[in-house]
């Protein structure tokens, strides 16, 4: 059909641009702990040429709780359950039926994934030994970012040299800051800054988990990390490192090394995703 609106043409995408998702990740036990209780998971599907599938990337960081027994089991189990549910409900449907496949709201799929992971934890508890984990899962679907988040692992978005924290820590100090009772400076040195008030422990969750979406810029870097990174190095160091002219893997290596050199008091995990959409 003839378009009457051709004169109104909007800026079209450069036909030679190739969208891409690139991933680099590191996980390290640190300098103090005996065991790495962090888990990360990345999955990237890229399709080009004819529009087969939208870009699809799933990135998960889970930090098994240090104080609890079996923290490493918890982070592993939760990451696997969440990855399985999201890939099964969204990615497999896309492959099977194409673009029109997604019928259930994406955020509901992510909420279900967390709920299933929590149930799996409940079932896996041994002899009443407590185990728990944080969870930060990011899904890139088309040009949109979906996040589900429990605990104090974090997601950052770097865009045009501006670093912004996308998640909200479920920590006592963050709650105090939100209530205006603590400044960011005071929070950084607060003796209880490691106290997390929400983690997945297989117990009934009183509040719904944080799940939200935002559109992504054309170009940027997404970073997921455990508090072993952010507890050691500040946001200015992270922003500077991500802004440097380095390969993505070199950036991940450098972030890890910075955290190790400043003490490495906890397990350190970092996942970097550079996207061009």
């Amino acid at each position, binding site marked *: *059909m*003839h*378009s*009457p*609106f051709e004169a*109104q043409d*909007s800026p079209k995408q450069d036909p030679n641009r190739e969208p891409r998702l690139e991933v680099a990740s590191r996980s390290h036990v640190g300098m103090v702990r005996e065991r790495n209780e962090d888990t990360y998971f990345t999955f990237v599907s890229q399709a080009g040429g004819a529009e087969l599938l*939208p870009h699809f990337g799933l990135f998960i960081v889970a930090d098994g709780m240090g104080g609890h027994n079996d923290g490493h089991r918890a982070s592993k189990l939760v990451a696997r359950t969440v990855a399985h549910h999201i890939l099964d409900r969204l990615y497999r449907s896309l492959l099977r039926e194409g*673009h*029109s496949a*997604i*019928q*259930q*709201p*994406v*955020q*509901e799929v992510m909420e279900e994934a967390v709920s299933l992971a929590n149930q799996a934890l409940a079932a896996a508890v041994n002899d009443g030994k407590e185990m728990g984990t944080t969870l930060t899962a990011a899904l890139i*679907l*088309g*040009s*949109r970012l*979906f996040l589900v988040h429990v605990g104090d692992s974090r997601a950052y978005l770097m865009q045009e040299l501006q670093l912004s924290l996308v998640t909200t820590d479920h920590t006592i100090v963050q709650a105090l800051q939100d209530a205006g009772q603590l400044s960011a400076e005071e929070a950084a040195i607060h003796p209880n800054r490691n106290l997390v008030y929400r983690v997945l422990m297989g117990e009934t969750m009183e509040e*719904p988990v*944080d*799940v*939200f*979406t*935002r*559109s992504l810029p054309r170009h940027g870097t997404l970073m997921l990390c455990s508090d072993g990174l952010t507890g050691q190095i500040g946001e200015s160091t992270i922003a500077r490192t991500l802004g440097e002219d380095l390969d993505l893997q070199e950036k991940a290596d450098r972030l890890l090394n910075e955290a190790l050199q400043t003490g490495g008091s906890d397990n350190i995990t970092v996942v970097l995703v550079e996207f061009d959409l």
Partner: protein
Amino acid sequence: MGGFTTRQLSREQARGRNRRSGQLQPGDMLQDRYRIIGTLGVGGFSSVYQARDMRFANVTKLCAIKEMVNLAPDPKIREITTRTFEREASILATLDHPAVVSVHDYFSEADRSYLVLEFIRGKDLESILTEVTEVFEQEQVLDWAFQICDVLSYLHNHRPDPIVFRDMKPSNVMLDPHGRIRLIDFGIAKLFQSEEKNTTIGTEGYAPPEQYRGEASPAGDVYGFGATLHHLLTRQDPRLEPPFSFQERPIHAINPDVSPALEQVIMRCVSYNAAERYTNAEQLKKALEGVERRMNNLSPMAPPSAAQASPRERLQGDPSAEQLITRPRESTTVVNNIFDESTVGPIWTFRCEDEIRSTPAVARGTVFVGAYDNNVYALSSRDGSFRWKFPASDSIAASPYVYNDAVYIGSADSNLYSIHMHTGRLNWRHTAGGPIYSSPRAKFDHVFFGSDDNFLYAVSTGSGRVAWKTNAFHPVRSSAHVAEDLVFFGTEGGYVFCLDLAGQVKWQFQARRAVTSTPTVDEGIVLVGSMDNTVYALDVASGWPIWRFRTQRPIISSPVTHDGTVFIGSADGSLYAIEISSGRKIWSFETEGQIASSPAVWNGAVYFGSTDGTVYSAECSKGKLRWRFKTGGMVISSPVIDDGVLYIGSVDHHLYALPV
């Protein structure tokens, strides 16, 4: 039924001596009379075949033949099994109810017994559940429920002994082509003998707990009935859920459309303790009749939209349009006496000859509004003084739109009018194939609107010529939202469409009921309400659902966004503020009527009308009431704010100018 799978069955058969191996094949004859045509189903102990009765050689008389294979190695048990079969035949032969399948014949050959039954065309409810992807309407389910209840009641009242069906589940309920229910497979139905412990059990998920202890009673059928209805209304297969977990799976959590009264009845049916259920189908039927009465009395929400309610239906006295919204008691009060309940007073008012349900438009010192008296009025925004009016040949339920020097408005007379904004003279009109309840929107020198003729139109604002029209397959009463070079609108068929500027469909999304609400786009997310009670957030590029937010009643109100929040009204009486990024409720504000009016946001406050007759202003951030203004009729019109003044119409025939 027993735990035999098909595979076990064939293995057992292969092992058997002097036994027919495997299933009957098409062409096989039984009793020199019944020719097998095909297999209808295979169960644990039995198979069901379709056969032709060759006694009627000149016509094709079909029947269903149920074959029971006697697999038990123990002769005693084999004997019991045969007796079970004979009992089924005898019971069935004595029954006389239109919903009970009739028995023509029965016989045994070797170690197999056969029951010749009436062949019922149609499908069982389980197959229908599998084929249909949508949730059944509760009216439909209630109709089936009454029919099932009726036949269960017949069985439970059977003399001398009540008959317990014992295997109530969707696959045992056939729906014939006339929409009538037929109960099939009385395989384990047995004469009720309270002292005797029965051996076989029903189907896991549908069978009551006491049946596993060998107890069968009419209350067990009540449980199976409840389990069947729960499955039909939630689409959650109880065989896949934890046993006896109905109480943890309330129906409204999955299907909010189900009336609380119906849910209450079903939940009582699936009580774990038999004593807490209805004792028999008779009692249950009484409870269902109560549900039906309440649904008929208390279900004011009918299909046509209120915001743009079809005047045709209203004028013809269609009760649905009037029932749609309960008139406030004050509706007859004279305008001068009603300000007592208001905390602000009007700057001016203007009276039309009929109700104002549409939303005004304001441009360059003039307010334009359409009324049910067929006129578009142009008034001075300063003092409400009359400038001109333009008569359409039928009522105007849609809202005017001002673009360049013209006012665009659609009418139930099927015309879209372009009127000169200063003189009120007609520039041109375009006649669609059906009434226009969709309000026009103009952009890029084209005006976009939908019609009840199922098309979405793009018409040149200069010439009135159609640039393109796109078939949406259902009436379009939603208005088009034009953003990011895309056109978004909803249809009465429940779809949200996204078109490009050439009118080509880019994607469509299906809600469960009509989408009369007009979509809006914010942060790459399309937001829209549906008559299925739900607010949907869809990805602008693909139409994928991102989240959904359920209210208690249908949504006609169109969403408006401000600062990361979407505001929308519902027929449940509340205005909702929902966070766009997460789909979580920030606050809700309850009125005493329904909110069909679409909210407007200005300077940190949200404004909206309710059918309780009041215009409200609430703070955007917390939902705290700022002021309210009581009109003399329902407020279905949406507010428009210009230069610190809010304009809104009321069913009391007045247009009000209020200070914000």
